[in-house]
């Protein structure tokens, strides 16, 4: 997947608003593979909605979203399974991890599906992100900030052309945010992938090519 385009996309709940001032809603945008995009937003402006539209689990929007020029409303279940395994990765705001599995199992869970990373590579991440001691701890026992780091590792355990991160550092201090940005940046560079980050205040520190206000 090389481009993601948004044409006049607007959440249906915003349809009856008279005036929309946004760099994203009701605009024509194109994100290319390899670009780093920051979407700044106040809460309630629909950044999680945007992520869910692009990741294909909600379609209550007007306008057209295309991957490589193909309208995503026409994709089949199998297409989505493929895209989620090999083209598009997502770090959800609500993380969507499994609390009954350990931190390692949560990552392994994705990795067994894609067979993308070695166990020792994942171990290096755990150490870099400072949660190596939580390897076998059930995820439910981790703080939200620690869970965010596990979610990042899970999101990186797959080939992707674009990675979306929905408020990835909301519960992290600056130092950990920097480490996270480094890990993410390294992996994205290796894959030549685009990064789209949303943020309501604290930014993940990357060299963004584009900054948009939602």
């Amino acid at each position, binding site marked *: 997947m090389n481009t993601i385009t948004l044409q006049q996309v607007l959440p249906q709940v915003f349809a009856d608003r008279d005036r929309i001032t946004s760099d994203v809603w009701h605009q024509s945008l194109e994100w290319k593979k390899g670009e780093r995009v920051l979407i700044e937003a106040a809460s309630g402006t629909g950044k999680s909605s945007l992520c869910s539209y692009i990741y294909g*689990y909600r379609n209550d929007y007007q306008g057209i979203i295309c991957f490589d020029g193909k309208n995503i409303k026409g994709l089949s279940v199998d297409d989505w399974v493929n895209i989620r395994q090999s083209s598009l990765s997502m770090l959800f705001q609500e993380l*969507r991890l*499994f609390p009954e599995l350990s931190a390692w199992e949560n990552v392994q869970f*994705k990795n067994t599906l894609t067979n993308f990373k070695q166990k020792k590579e994942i171990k290096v991440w755990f150490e870099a992100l400072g949660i190596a001691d939580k390897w076998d701890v059930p995820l439910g026992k981790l703080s939200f900030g620690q869970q965010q780091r596990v979610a990042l590792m899970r999101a990186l355990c797959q080939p992707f052309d674009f990675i979306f991160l929905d408020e990835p550092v909301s519960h992290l201090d600056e130092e950990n945010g920097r480490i996270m940005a480094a890990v993410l940046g390294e992996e994205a560079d290796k894959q030549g992938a685009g990064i789209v980050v949303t943020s309501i205040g604290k930014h993940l520190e990357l060299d963004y090519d584009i900054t948009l206000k939602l």
Partner: protein
Amino acid sequence: MRLVWKLLRSHVSVSQLAGFFLANLCGMVIVLLSIQFYNDVLPVFTGGDSFLKKDYLIVSKKVSTLGSFVGKSRTFSERDKEEIEAQPFTKGVGAFTPSQFKVSAGVGMEQVGLQMSTAMFFESVPDKYVDVNLDKWHFTPGEETIPIIIPRNYLNLYNFGFAQSRSLPQLSEGVMGMINLEIRISGRGMRDTFKGNIVGFSDRLNTILVPESFMNWANQTYAAGEVKEPSRLIVEVNNPADDRIARFFKDKGYETEDDKLDAGKTTWFLKLIVGIVMAVGLVISALSFYILMLSIFLLLQKNSTKLENLLLVGYSPAKVALPYQFLTVGLNAVVLLLAVGLVWLLRGSYLDKLQNLLPGLEGGMQWPMLVIGFLLFVLVSVFNVLAVRRKINGLIKK
């Protein structure tokens, strides 16, 4: 797969699955047992006369007191025979040919110092009505051995009456087949001895049958060879339940040995009862299937967030459905195996009882039971698999 199962097994209700398991087992055992029982018991009603063609009737004229006095003919003329042959329900008519010479038969068991001898008679029907293996059922002049079919009653008379009162050994049909009867035939001043070899027992023919070839030869040799009219006919029919048969014979004043009809009725009742029992079993199976589906749906509902997350992580619906499908198919397979095992156990016990009652009974085939069990398993499993898959696809569309 291991992790998926680890995730999804929470909320699995053991009690609900146990409920399904027992109910399905119950239904399956009832269905399979009724099929097996039917196959085992059916030969009791239909077996026995396997050497005679299936749908035949034996017809004789009524013996009445008045008729005996006035000397009314009790034999069938050629015209009577043709008339029966012309009936729409008739496939073929054969005559019983009686022997016109004197016969006596003896059994000698010198070890026990026993000699029995009795005067008797022979009859024959055309060979095409007899299904005994043809190399056993033939006679050519000059041979010493005559194949014979005797009524099973004779054996019972000996076994349960004579042998018991004299403390003699009881004989099975197999042993009887090995005993040579000494047959003495006399007529026209001649007297010869033959060996009689019992090749079959009949529940329905109250006569002693020999091959037609022997009868023709013996009637010519030991009697004048004049042709006597038969007193009984064997009529092969298309369908013994045809009511035209009964009406015709009643009109003509003929009698049929109608235990064939009784056997038909009994088989019909057996079928009916087995059918009802099987239907009950199927209903129980269907209900158990319903329990399973409810339980699985409840499980899916409780795990719906997890399932949704699995799908969003990139697991395909097929992969997500797999653990539940394995669970249900596995349960069904265990049910099938247990049900077959139980049926075998139960069959063992009822076969013992039946064999006390009917020594010759060997039990019917088992493959229909196994095949139907397997088909039920496949059917239920396919439904389960599809239903789970549909439910998970439903989650995606949400």
